[in-house]
């Protein structure tokens, strides 16, 4: 135990937090992969990085922090939460890069527009810790003018920095010299060939304190073995849109929140502030999707709002194959996350 220099705990995606340990050499590896990650996002010495991942037991905060320092950038260790202060710091220090969850960035963006905060110097977002869709990236980039990079990692392996998107924004390079990726069939455990979709399992090659052999991530993806245009020879994984366990089974159909998100974004003008509420009425599952009304879609005419509601319902039903009820709610009435977004409220008492 005296070789252990730090402890962290997982953010608890599946419930109970998992404690993880690091030797000094483990921390050095971690900082190195984070330096590579930031560099892949086009960041370097001279950048001002606002680190809004939570500092503490969560690996996001300190992992990004030491990586950004080793990169030679200026780090603002603001941690998560306190939106007003985040925006003030962003404007005052001319922040060029931001690390946080994508859903929290949307919240910051919304608040920045309201308060007319200047974030014109911001050019890169390093977003992770929760699955987000390609459509959400398009929206973020279009509305903010920044480049949004997906970063991947998990506490059990090391924390953030297991994989990162390069400038191509097409799959995440896995730092295979430290973390060896394989894809398995989550049902049978069989290893699948490159390109096939399945559960990502990772083997650590350099970890000392907590080596992992074929650790099951529960993240669903596929390995992209073909060379990347950026020149890196590290293999990539497809962006993770879902986990094998954030799935909810509704009337026997597997539903992932990311599917609902994709459907909502298909209907023009709807930012993905939504909540899925599951109830059971007379033994039958009922799905309600609460969607906040935005100024872009609000109409003075009731029939247009009702048409929007039906459009949203149709878009979700098309994707899920399930009947849903869409409820339009007032702006900012749904809870905002400062960490992982909680998209599903299950009131079914299963």
């Amino acid at each position, binding site marked *: 135990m005296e070789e252990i220099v730090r402890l962290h705990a997982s953010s608890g995606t599946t419930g109970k937090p998992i404690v993880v340990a690091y030797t000094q050499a483990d921390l050095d590896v971690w900082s190195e992969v984070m330096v590579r990650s930031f560099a892949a996002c086009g960041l370097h010495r001279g950048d001002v990085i606002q680190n809004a991942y939570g500092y503490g037991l969560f690996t996001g905060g300190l992992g990004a922090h030491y990586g950004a320092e080793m990169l030679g950038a200026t780090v603002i260790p603001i941690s998560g939460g306190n939106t007003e202060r985040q925006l003030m710091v962003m404007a005052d220090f001319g922040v060029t890069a931001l690390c946080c969850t994508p859903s929290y960035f949307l919240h910051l963006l919304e608040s920045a527009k*309201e308060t007319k905060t200047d974030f014109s110097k911001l050019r890169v977002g390093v977003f992770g810790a929760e699955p987000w869709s390609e459509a959400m990236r398009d929206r973020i980039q279009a509305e903010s003018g920044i480049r949004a990079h997906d970063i991947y990692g998990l506490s059990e392996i090391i924390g953030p920095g297991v994989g990162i998107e390069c400038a191509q924004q097409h799959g995440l390079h896995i730092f295979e010299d430290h973390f060896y990726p394989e894809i398995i069939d989550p049902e049978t455990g069989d290893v699948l060939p490159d390109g096939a979709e399945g559960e990502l399992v990772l083997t650590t090659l350099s970890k000392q304190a907590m080596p992992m052999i074929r650790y099951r991530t529960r993240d669903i993806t596929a390995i992209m073995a073909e060379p990347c245009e950026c020149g890196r020879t590290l293999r990539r994984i497809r962006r993770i849109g879902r986990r094998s366990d954030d799935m909810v089974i509704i009337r026997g159909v597997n539903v992932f929140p990311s599917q609902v998100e994709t459907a909502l974004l298909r209907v023009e003008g709807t930012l993905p502030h939504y909540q899925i509420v599951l109830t059971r009425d007379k033994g039958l599952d009922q799905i309600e999707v609460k969607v906040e*009304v*935005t*100024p872009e879609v*609000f*109409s*003075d*005419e*009731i029939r247009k*709002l*009702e048409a929007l*509601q039906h459009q949203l319902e149709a878009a979700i039903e098309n994707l899920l194959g399930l009947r849903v009820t869409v*409820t*339009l*709610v*007032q*702006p*900012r*009435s749904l809870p905002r996350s400062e960490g992982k977004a909680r998209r599903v409220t299950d009131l079914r008492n299963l």
Partner: protein
Amino acid sequence: MKLKQLSLFLENRPGQLRAPIAALGNAGIDILTMTLADTAQFGILRFIVADPARAKDVLEAEGMIVSVTEVVPIQVDNRPGGLAAVLAAIESAGLGVEYMYDFAARATPDKAAIIFRFEDADRALEALKAAGVRILTSEELLRK
């Protein structure tokens, strides 16, 4: 002339109507007339104030969604058949009425003011003027 009406999205929950009205009251803004449209799920509050731009700012600062719609204030004789005569002119001009409501702040014994929302306010204005329907000006409406 056209008048700017503000519309507000409200959820069907207790207290949702009070919040915007209180915000306007605190800002010293007088509501000249208003109407509430409701569906099973949500409501739309439509109202007219002397300075719509300021009222919009006040409500948006509270995080509410406000849209501005152009409506047409029409003078109607306050007698049986008065409104029917105006509606006949509207019908023969081929205009569709989205909704209409009474202008509360202006009560004179012989004339009433009714706010009309047409799909195309400009076309309605032109057609109604040609048909001899009396359109009110904002000065006339806002005079107390």
